[in-house]
């Protein structure tokens, strides 16, 4: 069992609690012991980076510092946006000793330990797509997905900018497909799988956002997918909750179930509904579960 610091972020703490419970239940099966960070805040979701960038850097440095204080070398995330914000701040600090010294001085001034020992920020997706996590996943996913057709949806910020994320080729990603296959599912391919779900502007520019959101849903639907899986709770919220708005703009009701990565693997690993919490989804996941039982 490898100890990692676990940063669940805003959504998994509140509106996407199902992601947190599924992740907590899944972690030991893939060799991870999660140490949940308590004294941490929002990463800023790119919004604080754009509003108060210096504050953004300090907030994230504080999260990194508390992760390092747990004596681990990995900070585990379950959200694309948290991953990018934390990794970006981390690279800013690791690559500039002057900047790191200034930020550390500020942290200490407000009672936070200085960020001294480096940690690496990694998404759960990366932990289970290769290496030991992947080997354990193959064993854990014994119940399988019985040939369910699953459309992987990466979203943006787990892939780009690749100079910060860098886990896989942002134009030919393979991690989700590999996991779907390991769980006994059949990955469905479609062009919009690496594009934007529209979430960052879904409140400020809804029409533009819906013009983006329709693409993955429509393409996955037409490719015959039983469900879409995503490693990001923001993509999940957009694809799941805003899907109903497409009815108004396009007249089409796709009813496409959207699964969090931890839930998809959780189903294959036989986790209970009390941990997967599918009842919290807006689009019903029932058809998928029924197909599995059939």
């Amino acid at each position, binding site marked *: 069992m490898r100890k990692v610091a676990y940063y669940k972020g805003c959504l998994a703490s*509140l509106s996407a609690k199902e992601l947190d419970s599924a992740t907590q239940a899944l972690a030991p099966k893939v060799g991870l012991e999660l140490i949940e960070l308590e004294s941490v805040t929002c990463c800023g979701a790119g*919004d604080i980076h754009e509003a108060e960038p210096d*504050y953004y850097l300090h907030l994230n440095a504080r999260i990194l510092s508390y992760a390092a204080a747990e004596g681990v070398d990995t900070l585990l995330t379950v959200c694309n946006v948290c991953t990018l914000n934390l990794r970006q701040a981390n690279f800013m600090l690791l690559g500039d000793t002057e900047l790191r010294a200034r930020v550390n001085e500020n942290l200490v*001034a407000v009672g936070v330990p200085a960020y001294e020992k480096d940690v690496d920020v990694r998404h759960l997706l990366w932990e289970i797509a290769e290496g030991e996590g992947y080997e354990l996943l193959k064993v854990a996913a014994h119940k399988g997905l019985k040939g369910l057709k699953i459309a992987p949806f990466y979203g943006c910020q787990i892939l780009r900018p690749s100079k910060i994320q860098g886990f896989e*080729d942002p134009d030919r990603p*393979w991690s989700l497909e590999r996991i779907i296959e390991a769980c006994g599912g059949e990955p469905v391919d479609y*062009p919009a799988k690496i594009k934007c779900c529209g979430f960052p502007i879904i409140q*400020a520019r809804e029409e*533009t956002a819906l013009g983006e959101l329709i693409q993955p849903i429509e393409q996955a639907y037409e490719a015959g997918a039983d469900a879409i899986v995503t490693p990001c709770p923001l993509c999940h919220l957009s694809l799941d909750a805003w899907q109903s708005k497409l009815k108004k703009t396009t007249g089409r009701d796709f009813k496409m179930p959207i699964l969090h990565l931890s839930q998809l693997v959780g189903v294959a690993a036989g986790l209970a509904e009390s941990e997967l919490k599918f009842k919290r989804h807006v689009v019903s996941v029932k058809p998928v579960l029924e197909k599995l039982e059939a």
Partner: protein
Amino acid sequence: MTMQVGLKVWRFNSRTGERELQEFEIAAPEEATLLDCLDIVKDQHDGTLAYRKSCRMMICGSCGMRMDGAAVLACKMRMYDIAQAGHVPVISAMGNLPIVKDLVVDMDPFWEKFNSVNPYLQPGYEEPPDGKENLITQERMNVIHKEALCINCGCCVSECNAMEADPLFTGPQALAKAMRFVGDPRDGQKLARLEKLNGEHGIWECTRCYFCTERCPKGVDPRDAIAKLGAESMKEGIDRDMGAKHAKWFVTSARTTGWLRETELVPKTQGVVAAIKQTRFALDLALKGKVPPPFPPHVAKDVKESRRLYDLVRDQGRDGYAGIVQGERALGRLSHGHGVGDQTLEEIYDRPGAYHRPFIADEEADA
């Protein structure tokens, strides 16, 4: 030494609407770029192929096009590894711009947006009192160093997801160019520029897909430039846009409870009246627990530290774009990463159903 290069090129005639995927097999020097290969095609195989080129050295910005669906400068793209892997890439015109013929796009909409940000210095800065030269420090120039590298090739615009959904979006190239002048100490119209950039199709329509940053062949990082414009607008008190209010609510949340106060985000962004119009939608979400009650607030442990950090750093002069510029030195050292994990490249390419050409859906459907 020569190598064999295979290319599939999308031919298109805008007058007749005819399109055809044409395959070529050519012999090229091992150091050949995609542009060299196209030159060989045009010279030795098919003189009717149309594409733009000029300098052949990554500075004129003429030869932007898509390879396997991703915008590249043809003159920067070395073909050796691709040819060795036996891969035959699909070459097509850039996206988000009308195609004139084959690989040539109509750049007029691009230049219109470029011109809309007044891409030249406007007078109005303070002259040095003694009539001497107006010296600009390196530190001031660092603010716009990346943005000044733009060669107007359009690779960022080609892939912009927000522009696909709304063609009126000002877009990454024009906004990066705008930052180049907003951050220039010799420009006298900074506030007027920021006001305009906060318009309906301005900076707050960026969807943060980071395709622009990924594609730019010159390291301009337009998404970062847009964030700099946002930060500078907020510093100057230009925050009436819903996007700005949305961003500000994250700051307020981090300072007060530590976590995002999700339920209040909609009224804080859109205003109470617009939020009430969303009541029906919100109720559907509330039934599923997607609208967490604001009371009692979900407060992070030791959140006072986060509040004190805010108060402390706001007086340190790194607000606005300075807060982003301070990280560019470290981030500039990172190179693009294309990790393959514990698999080989062949395993990834050969995966059944692996999608090799992410962005040419329309063309593919016709093939």
